[in-house]
């Protein structure tokens, strides 16, 4: 590949070259002259296609009041819009980061706060008291209850899993590890119990 072809390739695929390599090639006098011609050619075509015709937004609007002339520049609206959007994005990202990184404190578990719990049939037995059914319940609701029972914090690494709905049952006589094992059978779920916190993440679907 000769130098001019290399220059053409560099222009087309800048991602394949370092700044240093670009700089070195353009230090060659002959290459630079070719590049200058290409810049002029781009400008020539831009001129021909009428890109130099002013866009509407660049015009200055002149508004006359009773005694004075006020000139309003509306050309910076895009700048202002860009700054606003950036501010919204940054604050949104900050909020999202806070929610992801802050473990959720599970509320105190009381009978009154668990309207979705249903005991197994056969009322009055200890078995019915210990088994809890979650019929089509959001995962974050399930785990809030379970974590609270075992004295664990809860943290969704993959926040989209909060909304996952499961039909599952939980035996309060079993250990947390056993129950986590039960939930990890579900496709796409990966729960771990570390440092007094249950972490909820997704799996990429690979079989163990």
């Amino acid at each position, binding site marked *: 590949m000769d130098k001019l072809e290399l220059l053409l390739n*560099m222009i087309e695929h800048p991602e394949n070259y370092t700044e240093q390599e670009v700089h070195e090639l353009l230090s060659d006098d002959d290459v630079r002259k070719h590049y200058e*011609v290409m810049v*002029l050619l781009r400008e020539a075509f831009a001129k021909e296609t009428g890109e130099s015709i002013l866009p509407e937004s660049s015009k200055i609007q002149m508004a006359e009041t009773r005694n004075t002339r006020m000139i309003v520049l509306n*050309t910076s609206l895009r700048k202002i819009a860009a700054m606003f959007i950036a501010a919204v994005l940054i604050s949104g990202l900050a909020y999202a980061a806070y929610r992801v990184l802050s473990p959720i404190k599970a509320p105190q578990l009381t009978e009154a706060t668990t309207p979705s719990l249903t005991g197994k049939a056969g009322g009055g037995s200890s078995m019915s008291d210990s088994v809890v059914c979650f019929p089509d319940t959001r995962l974050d609701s399930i785990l809030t209850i379970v974590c609270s029972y075992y004295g664990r914090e809860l943290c969704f690494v993959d926040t989209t899993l909060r909304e996952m709905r499961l039909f599952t049952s939980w035996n309060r006589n079993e250990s947390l590890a056993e129950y986590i094992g039960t939930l990890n059978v579900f496709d796409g779920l990966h729960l771990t119990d570390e440092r007094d916190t249950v972490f909820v993440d997704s799996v990429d679907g690979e079989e163990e």
Partner: protein
Amino acid sequence: MEVTSDIYRVYEQHREPMMRLALRLLGDSEEANDVVSDVFAHIVETPAAIRDNAASYMLSSVRNRCLNLLRHKRLSERVHKLLPIGEDMVEEPQIDETEDVLDAMLQFVDTELTPQTREVVRLRFQEQMSYREISTRLGISEVAVYKHLVQAISRLKERFNP
């Protein structure tokens, strides 16, 4: 912002060449727009700066602001967009002379290149198509696209930048 009608009249008179220059240097209409607005805002604040030759002052202001913007862009980004990479590539805005050169280049492309080479050049520099898109559009290999561009640019360089 309160201005005199004189300043407004001067601005209106020179707005188009200012935009043309900014567009040529930056290749982006939004950025060009911002530069021209900034120059005008500066003039409104310091109208005495215009003094005698308003055209020259305004165009030089546009040129300098564009150079500042270009300096902040990475070299590879400037090369990718075929923007000037140094002050020596941005001459003082003697508009008539530069416009003549640009017109002459277009005429050269239209009259001195083969039809196929001319088409490749237009698709690349006017339509800003990638080499792959050009090869697909014209039914030629990417290698052939390179060859046509090499030929065209070499001849243009010989003629306009020896």
